């Protein structure tokens, strides 16, 4: 599914990376705990999170996540945006809570990646 469609489904606004809405997303991960995110490992992953600290971008950079949507109407600070700019990671945000954002995408056919070992 394209990031453009995900933006519509989750009612998100783009913070960074308007030109990257054609990115193909095949896996979604929803977590506020970066260590949990770091147990994921898949291509074309979108991260949904309520955490807006720069550590989120670093984590995304390590895993080569494709894009990030901040949930619950949270917007990242400038430092976080700047880091994302350097890493080339598109950022979006939605007013919807994490549970609903996940639910909307799951319903639309995006199933989550299985944790390693499951």
């Amino acid at each position, binding site marked *: 599914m394209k990031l453009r469609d995900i933006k519509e489904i989750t009612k998100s606004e783009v913070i960074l990376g308007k030109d990257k809405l054609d990115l193909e997303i095949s896996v979604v991960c929803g977590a*506020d*705990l*970066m*260590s*949990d*995110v*770091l*147990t994921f*490992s898949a*291509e074309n992953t979108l991260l949904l*999170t309520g*955490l807006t*600290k*720069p*550590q*989120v971008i*670093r*984590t995304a*950079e*390590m*895993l*080569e996540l494709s894009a990030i949507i901040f949930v619950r109407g949270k917007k990242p*600070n*400038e*430092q976080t945006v*700047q880091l994302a700019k350097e890493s080339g990671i598109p950022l979006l945000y939605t007013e919807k809570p994490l549970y609903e954002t996940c639910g909307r995408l799951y319903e639309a056919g995006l199933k989550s990646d299985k944790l*390693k*070992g499951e």
Partner: protein
Amino acid sequence: MQNSSLNFEFIEKLSTDLTVHDIMTNDVITLKPDNKVKNAKEIMRLRKISGIPIINNSGELKGIISIDDIIRGLEENRLNDELRVLMSTELITIHPDDSVADALRKFKKYKYGRLPVIDKDNLLLGIVTPGDITRKLLEEVERGSEDDEFFLQIKPLDKNEEDKDNIQIEVEIEGGDFNNSGQASSKVKRVLKELGVDSVNIRKAAIVTYEAEMNVVIHARQGRLIAEITPELIKIIVEDEGPGIEDIDLAMQPGYSTASEHVRELGFGAGMGLANIEQWADDLHLESEVGKGTKLEAKIYL
């Protein structure tokens, strides 16, 4: 390299070819204008540095606090004042694209011990000192200038010609420096990419280095990340000077954590770090001495 390369023309050519970007230090300790003078004094004492750039929340350079300013603060009993009142604000700065020769000229003219490196929007990118220049020039002289610029940061594991496939990278990690946490791992990841390591193993190595780096930032005073890359494996060593781990088996258990609330707000400190490392590394070895530090050694077979 021949001895003849040590001549003046060689140095001169290097200093005009190299840019400030090539030599500057990126991992700079910074403070905010509303931090106290006494904080700056302590950081300088502990880190043995002679000046700290002061940036605002957007990362724009607002001033520099130097040892001279601190001495003035001590004399005037102003250690509890905010840095904004004591910091120097008339700054001589330099841009990343300027040549090393430009930097040398500025050092000579203004007699400063460091120059902040800023971009066109006044955002602080790094800092450059005369020591950085000397070190870089020496490196270049030793190694010749034909190497790819990127690989200048990396040294072959062995001087032996046959072992030139083996590469070692070493990056310092500052304890408590959450702003820059992850930079060491980013560097290692870039090198692995450059070397053409496959993406699955890069991701494994990135997770292992990042979690280990976060552990140093969270728990230790300082540490370093060493990555050795051979055609067969990536060996990651992260060692620190810190409190050490009392019970390694307990620390390895998912969910066991001694991290502070602040660390948890950053999305870490949930006691998953070592468990994650164990999950992604093919081989993991931990040594620790309470009160001294910890050494982690992880291997990923290629």
